[in-house]
């Protein structure tokens, strides 16, 4: 049964990108365990506003685990202690009465802090942009089965496409590497016949952009995979390495 719990919340406060940040601890009373984690932060912000203090800035949007906006490093885990779930899908029943919950922003050179818990994840958008276009034949609506795709390939492409680009992979990586994200984006198209045409160019361009933006070098620790809210597999990284090395050898 969900109970009402009293908790301490230790939050990273930082007024701007260049300013020095520090932890502040707040007390929250009678939080129902059925409350979602972000609702708990809403309650805390309301409390702060009523006290005349600055509310905590944090990213969120859809609150149903599909947009990739929420971030937050909760108690040493990207997206908190739940597996296969984003921060917005995290509920207070994961925490117990009297617990101190530590909330930090993503910490990675690729994701500079904007304010408090909000980080700039524009770098991921730049990598997506570098991927470029996909050639398709325009004209009439094609027949549903005109391009045959093996079921396993379709499934793997779909699994890779589940990546929401939240940045948890780079945030959890001790090397600050974005390889899981980039490999998922390369794989979702490389697996399908429609994406084959630009596959080499796409792999080269996206890896080049990732390196240019200063993300680290992958050492296969698998921390990204374990913390990914969408359970993206590191086998995508092997696929991207394959695509990239092959494309460079062909040049």
């Amino acid at each position, binding site marked *: 049964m969900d109970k009402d719990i009293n908790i301490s919340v230790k939050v990273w406060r930082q007024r701007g990108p260049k300013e020095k*940040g520090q*932890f502040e601890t707040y007390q929250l009373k009678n939080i129902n365990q059925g409350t979602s984690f972000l609702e708990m932060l809403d309650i805390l912000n309301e409390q702060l506003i009523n006290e005349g203090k600055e509310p905590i800035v944090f990213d969120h949007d859809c609150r149903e685990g599909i947009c990739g906006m929420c971030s937050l*490093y909760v*108690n*040493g*885990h990207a997206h908190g202690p739940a597996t296969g779930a984003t921060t917005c899908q995290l509920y207070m029943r994961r925490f117990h009465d009297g617990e101190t919950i*530590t909330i*930090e922003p993503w*910490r*990675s*050179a*690729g994701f500079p802090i904007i304010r408090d818990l909000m980080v700039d994840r524009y770098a991921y958008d730049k990598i997506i942009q570098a991927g470029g276009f996909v050639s398709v034949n325009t004209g009439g609506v094609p027949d549903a089965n005109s391009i045959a795709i093996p079921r396993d390939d379709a499934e*793997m492409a779909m699994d890779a496409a589940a990546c929401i680009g939240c940045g948890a992979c780079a945030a*959890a*990586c*001790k*090397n*600050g*590497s974005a*390889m899981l994200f980039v490999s998922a984006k390369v794989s979702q198209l490389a697996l399908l016949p429609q994406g084959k045409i630009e596959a080499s160019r796409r792999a080269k361009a996206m*890896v*080049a952009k*990732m*390196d240019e933006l*200063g*993300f*680290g*070098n*992958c*050492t*296969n*620790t*698998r*921390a990204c*995979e*374990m*913390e990914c809210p969408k359970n993206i*597999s*590191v*086998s995508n*990284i*092997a*696929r*991207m*390495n*394959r*695509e*990239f*090395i*092959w494309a*460079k050898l062909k040049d």
Partner: protein
Amino acid sequence: MWLLNSSIGKKLIMSISGIFLILFLLFHMSMNVAAVFSGAAYDAICAFLGANWYAVAATMVLAAGFIIHIIYAFILTLQNRKARGNDRYAINARPKGVEWASQNMLVLGIIVILFLVLHFTQFWYNMMFAELMGHHEVMLGDGTVASPQSGATFINYYFKGNILITVLYLIWYVALWFHLTHGFWSAIHTLGWNNTIWMSRWECISKIFATVVCAIFAIITIIFYLNGVGGC
């Protein structure tokens, strides 16, 4: 040049040099096995791999493999620390499924190199290096004079009844074991030779391989401690 500039290229250098060093490890292990059965056979191998041009050339290639692997380890670690940024997490839990070795490869590598220095002063310095310097006799700490081609004499001198050296070598193998359990499959993953099915297989093969190699090295070391080389 993509091999030197791109992150995947740099990882590929780590991967290939690592696999090369793994192959050398197997070669070295088979030499040690010979020494367990016959000191004379081991001395014959030592003579063959002494200051001959092909042995010196192969040593240069091997040294290059080591140096590249080590230099790139430091380059990549420095780059990765920079990519991580200056601010660290106050609380950072190792997620379930992440192996300790995988996050401490540099530390494990440094331990392996430190022991390698000890190993070089005991063997390579007295053997190939002594021969290259034109010495035909090497004096050991206890006054024994040996030919630089007599590897069996060195093994007996350093290991037989010497518990300190034996334990140091065993610690070395433990560090090597951790390094290999991650290094082996990681190298293959970096080459791109992996998928969802082979992931757990490679990890399993890695563990078996590391265990077999390190166990054989350890058993041989203990035999040297107890009996010295075979047949003399």
